[in-house]
């Protein structure tokens, strides 16, 4: 009998303690994030209520305790809350990266095999006829492969500079194959190299330009990659003077993929615009919010 009474008493104490601790931490969290102005207002109210009731001491204790906690632990707690929010954002980023990886896998399964095939065949042939050129193409291929695969995980993969570098390797390989039928022009100012830019979008646009614009054209042509900032918007444009776009040709998984990813990453602030300029050929333009890389 007695033992059970003690037990129930202990249970009650434990519950009360748990409740108090929850309340205390809630108070603590509130203190941590509340503005000083509001806190001062509560002090004022506390004194206003307590003095007529002769409870000045309670009000004074509240004042001292809250002031102390706010000063000592407020900053740390606030940082924790900010960190929690950042973690949530990071989770969203992880999710986006996973999705992108899955999509990339699908995309690569479609694009890579014949690109690899043709490039390896080219290297094999050049080894016999032009070993220095073989070494050059081989180096470009290595560079291209190295940066396509781990870039999803690498942190610096998502800058415009990195993407341009990658595209140059790809274009160098294509030039070795298409020879004088493919000309390349880059108009990307140095200072934009550090601007954040999602991976694999530029390559997709360039591949499209070559595959649908220039390869079907007997004379070939030029791919121009241009980047500039207009207001707070980064413009990255891939233009070709190829055969243009057939209105009945499927726009393909590549462009749909870019559109989806832009939507996920930037919402309505980014867009992919496809145009056929009056001079012929096709232009694909990615617009997204321009932010300077934080120099931390």
């Amino acid at each position: 009998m007695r033992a059970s009474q003690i037990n129930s008493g202990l249970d009650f104490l434990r519950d009360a303690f748990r409740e108090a601790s929850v309340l205390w931490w809630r108070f603590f969290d509130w203190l941590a994030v509340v503005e000083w102005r509001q806190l001062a207002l509560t002090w004022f109210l506390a004194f206003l209520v307590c003095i007529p009731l002769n409870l000045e001491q309670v009000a004074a204790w509240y004042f001292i305790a809250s002031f102390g906690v706010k000063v000592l632990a407020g900053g740390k707690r606030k940082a924790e809350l900010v960190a929690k929010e950042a973690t949530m954002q990071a989770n969203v980023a992880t999710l986006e990266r996973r999705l992108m990886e899955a999509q990339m896998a699908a995309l690569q399964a479609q694009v890579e095999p014949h690109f690899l095939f043709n490039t390896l065949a080219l290297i094999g042939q050049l080894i016999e006829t032009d070993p220095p050129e073989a070494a050059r193409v081989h180096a470009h291929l290595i560079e291209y492969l190295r940066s396509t695969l781990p870039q999803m995980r690498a942190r610096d993969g998502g800058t415009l500079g990195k993407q341009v570098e990658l595209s140059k390797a790809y274009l160098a390989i294509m030039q070795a194959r298409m020879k004088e039928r493919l000309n390349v022009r880059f108009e990307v100012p140095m200072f934009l190299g550090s601007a954040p830019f999602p991976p694999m979008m530029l390559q997709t646009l360039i591949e499209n330009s070559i595959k649908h614009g220039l390869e079907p054209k007997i004379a070939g042509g030029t791919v121009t990659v241009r980047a500039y900032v207009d207001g707070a918007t980064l413009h990255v444009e891939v233009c070709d003077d190829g055969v243009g776009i057939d209105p009945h040709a499927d726009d393909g998984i590549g462009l749909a993929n870019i559109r989806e990813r832009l939507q996920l990453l930037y919402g309505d602030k980014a867009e992919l615009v496809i145009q056929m300029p009056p001079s012929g050929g096709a232009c694909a333009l990615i617009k997204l919010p321009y932010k300077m890389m934080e120099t931390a």
Partner: protein
Amino acid sequence: MSNERALTAMIADDEAPMRDLLRARLAAVWPELRIVAEAANGVEAVALGEQHQPDIAFLDIRMPGMSGIEAARQLYRRSHIVFATAYDQYALDAFEQGALDYLLKPVSAERLATTCARLRDRLNKRLQAHTPAQPDIGQQLAKLTSLLENKGSPQPKNGYLRWIQAQVGSSLRMVSTREVLFFQSDEKYTRVQTAGAEFLIRKTLKELAEELDPDEFWRIHRSTLVRVDAIGEVTRDLRGRHMLKLRGHPFELEVSRNHTYLFQQM
């Protein structure tokens, strides 16, 4: 045999390194074969093929101007066709079935040697028998053309409209039909609505309805075509009209009485 006439060949490939490779390999495994022409695209292949009339034409399948298969349809009566391809599984299956000669790129010396031995044998026999006529492969080539155009998909590519062309300034803006939420006729123009923008085009709704994929866009009103993927829910308003809400977008479209049957089961 010393009385063999030297056979002639043409190489057609849009990539110069590939032509170099094939020429080098042929020189190694079949030194008597004379390469009389090299073409960098399908049109050139037909022109040079007619000019030089080679015994053998090595044709890459994917070439600008005209595909290797199209070129073959014009050349096969004079020249024995050998296709070269790197990866087209559909084509390979078709070659096997149609007993057409082909080379797999990159061309290995061993594989080329086997193919060449077979070719030399057959062509010489044919020359000696004075039957220059080749087996008629025209029908197989025609089949191959349609097969490759459809890329082996069970349903033939039906040529539905995939891009809407809207004049924006001096440029032609290409709006993918995947971006379009709905089309609505508006006086003499048609309004094209995407998630973030709206364009006016001159193409009438009637023309659009005929050219678009009927599984991609449904007509829900005399003046409205809506993207099927974007359809959210259909409700009735106070006046008894059926109103269609788009998923994730703030648009509401009226469904006319004779199109409500589309949503009976929804």
